């Protein structure tokens, strides 16, 4: 009986004309989205390669200690699976006067949007009359008079309906993936395909939540017209309202000072205040070397000074000691002010972290938020993926700076007149290479969201059984 009911439910849905229409719509939308996003990815990748080349050529020609940090800004390659989840825009990392504002008003379409909006709506439209429709037709009484338990009926209705949606999802997704694979400029390795598989699984968990909502409303109201309205109301609240409100509600509940104010304060601490302190410390050094200072001032240019120093070993040693003390004075000023700004930064970012945690907690009430976080992290374009890149980047920067410092120390030994604005040859510097996190790492990052989605499913299923047991046929 279980098998028959399942086949009946599946056949009902598949041979419904709406199934054909929505499968065509989703397939068409996904195909266009993937083709556009694929081109966008290729452009981004070319742009990334161009950035690397521009940086390399520039550093080879103009590297100097003073501004080496600005030159060695590590670039992040675009994530391949960004084709499925746009996630956090890479533009957000850059503060620029010339930004593309269109994305602010109209965020780009992606697979996540197709699932969160179209498929969830379809799930509701397919399930809202699961029981009420049969009750109105009188078939529910007939089915239950055949010794079929209510639990078994809910399972078959749920599985049959979900299977039909899964078939549509597989068709759409497969066409999208085949289109991507046919393009030789991108290769999806086993890691990517596994991540795609998990994204598919997450999509099923997400869609089933709304399928269950439709079924519960159907059992609760007993009327198809009321059931569809109630389920669409719940859909609108959980899909369109709660997730969008969450960051704003969190920012009201837990205030963080403005980032502009914080940046201005840090700039003053590391700028004007640092300079004042540095100059005061240097004054103390100047007072210790009055004669040397007069010699430096009287020398018309660097060459004359160098000649004087070469002729007088004592003076040269004094000059080296003087330079070292001046450098120490500035290092001290930098260290004091950096510690001050670090304190402010720690305080500011701890508040930001608390606000982000609160935002996540509020938004997790909505399955849309859980799904979006999980899929973007799985695709390598989410918050976790960004943190992963920053970790790798930080480790590389440490080794890069060690290399630069060693090179500077070597140059200083041979060049007495070295200063931070002189060219240094670092053509043999270590190269940065980045591989996206493996799928197990991504999975463990998204596990909590998967669990929340599963808990939603379990709770809704229990509610469904309770509600259906109370339903009068």
């Amino acid at each position, binding site marked *: 009986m279980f098998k028959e009911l399942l086949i009946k439910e599946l056949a009902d849905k598949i041979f419904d004309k709406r199934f054909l229409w929505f499968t065509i719509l989703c397939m068409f939308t996904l195909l266009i989205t993937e083709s556009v996003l694929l081109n966008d990815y290729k452009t981004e990748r070319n742009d990334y390669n161009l950035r690397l080349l521009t940086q390399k050529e520039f550093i080879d020609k103009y590297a100097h200690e003073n501004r080496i940090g600005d030159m060695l800004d590590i670039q992040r390659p675009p994530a391949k699976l960004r084709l499925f989840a746009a996630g956090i825009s890479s533009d957000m990392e*850059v503060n620029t006067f010339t930004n593309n504002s269109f994305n602010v008003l109209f965020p780009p379409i992606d697979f996540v949007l197709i699932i969160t909006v179209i498929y969830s709506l379809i799930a509701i439209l397919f399930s809202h009359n699961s029981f009420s429709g049969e009750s109105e037709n009188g078939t529910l009484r007939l089915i239950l008079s055949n010794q079929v338990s209510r639990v078994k009926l809910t399972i078959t209705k749920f599985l049959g309906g979900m299977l039909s949606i899964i078939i549509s999802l597989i068709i759409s997704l497969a066409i999208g993936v085949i289109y991507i694979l046919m393009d030789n400029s991108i290769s999806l390795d086993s890691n990517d395909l596994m991540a795609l598989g998990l994204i598919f699984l997450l999509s099923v968990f997400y869609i089933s939540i709304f399928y269950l909502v439709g079924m519960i409303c159907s059992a609760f109201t007993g009327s198809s017209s009321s059931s569809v309205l109630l389920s669409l109301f719940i859909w609108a609240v959980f899909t369109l309202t709660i997730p969008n409100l969450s960051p704003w509600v969190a920012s009201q509940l837990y205030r963080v000072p403005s980032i502009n104010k914080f940046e201005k304060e840090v700039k003053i601490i590391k700028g004007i205040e640092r300079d004042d302190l540095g100059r005061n410390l240097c004054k103390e050094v100047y007072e210790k070397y009055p004669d040397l200072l007069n010699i430096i001032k009287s020398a018309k240019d660097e060459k004359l000074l160098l000649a004087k120093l070469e002729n007088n070993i004592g003076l040269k040693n004094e000059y080296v000691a003087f330079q070292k003390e001046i450098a120490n004075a500035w290092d001290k000023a930098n260290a004091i002010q950096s510690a001050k700004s670090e304190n402010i930064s720690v305080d500011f970012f701890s508040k930001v972290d608390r606000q982000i945690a609160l935002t996540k907690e509020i938004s997790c009430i909505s399955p849309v938020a859980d799904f979006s976080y999980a899929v973007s992290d799985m695709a390598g374009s989410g918050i976790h993926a960004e943190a992963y890149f920053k970790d790798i980047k930080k480790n590389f920067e440490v080794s890069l700076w060690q290399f630069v410092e060693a090179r500077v120390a070597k140059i200083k030994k041979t060049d007495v007149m070295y200063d931070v604005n002189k060219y240094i040859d670092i053509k043999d510097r270590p190269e940065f290479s980045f591989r996206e996190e493996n799928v197990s790492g991504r999975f463990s990052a998204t596990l909590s969201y998967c669990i929340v989605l599963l808990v939603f499913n379990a709770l809704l299923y229990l509610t469904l059984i309770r509600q259906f047991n109370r339903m009068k046929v």
Partner: protein
Amino acid sequence: MIKLFIKKELLENIFSFKFLIMFLLMFFSLNTAIFIMTKDYKARLQNYDILKPSKNEAFAITYPTPFSIFAHGLDDNICNLYQITFGGQIETGSQKQAINKIYNFFNTPDLLYIINIILSFCAILFASDLITREKEQGTLKLIFSNGIKRPAFSLGKWIGGYITLIIPIVLSVLFGLIFFIILAKIPFQFSDFIRLLIFLFFVLVYLAGFFSLGLFISIVSRSSAFSMFFSLIVWVSLVFIIPRSGNLVAKQFINIPSVQTIEIKRSQIFIKAIFEYINSHYEKSKIPQGIINQQNDKIREDYLNKLNAVESIARKITSISPASDLTFLCTDLCNTGFREEQRFKTFVIMFKEQVKNFDSDSDGNLVGDFTPFSYARSPLSDFFNLAMMLHFSILIMYILIPVILGYYAFLKFDVR
């Protein structure tokens, strides 16, 4: 007879479950949006008071407009902190989206968003079974067996249904205005209320479009289930798919570098100019301000030309959707749209031109006597232009085409 139909429609709808659900959804969404955005506006105003430039500070920043409560648009970009540094470089401050990344996943829940998405959803859903339901219940046969003319019935249905739809919207918006804006003492002037009235007028036209579309689908559909299904497909396409595809599709036509590339080039111009200046032992002929300014201007102009071309194509594509047209109209009306952002940035560039030759300290902060940056938002008269007329015409077309097609389809409608 029309009056009678309007009355029947109103009474039937107002006491329905559908009306209750929609009223709750609209009231909750609209008032939450107004409340949240009012709070956000006040916080941003405080921020502006802290950051506004004093004399000799080369900062460009403007106050947030109270209209950002209704259409937030690009107000975060407009109210960002811009600093003019050595060589006329424009340094841009970070935005809250850069630190709390979760903002990137969701839309700003302002009044415009609620209207654009949720109210259009309610409008099309509300109308999607107005005719099919009567057909399924058999009342349509009864009505027309009494010698009632179809045009009078369809007009009464449209007017009655539409009035029922806008009652909760007007009530919710009025409630929100009184409780959150007047009581919160938001500085609204008389001219601002005119702006607000135009805003509401656009909203009513927009919703009339979705209502007409829903009614048309209801006329041409065989059953309520199909009508609702197709209405929702049309809604998803017009509200989500077309507006969100525009920018991506436009980028396929014009190859535009990323902002990261532009920033790298900008940074390299500065580093190279300073490096060459220092290593030429401070030769006056190589003073770098002019070089930095000139080269930055060129990069910015090239990029902006390409960006404007992309935006122009994207605007044309997205304009097919009434949701985009409403966004363009309302953000421009509220001074938070593309037009205002471009105007503000032109003022920043003018300010940069004024201070570009000033000397700077070791951190690039300009030193000298100059008038602080000031900016006033566009007057209402600037809003009325050709682009606005075009977007408004498209909104009107979304009412006229379904109404005309629906009228003719209804004349041939089989009521059995």
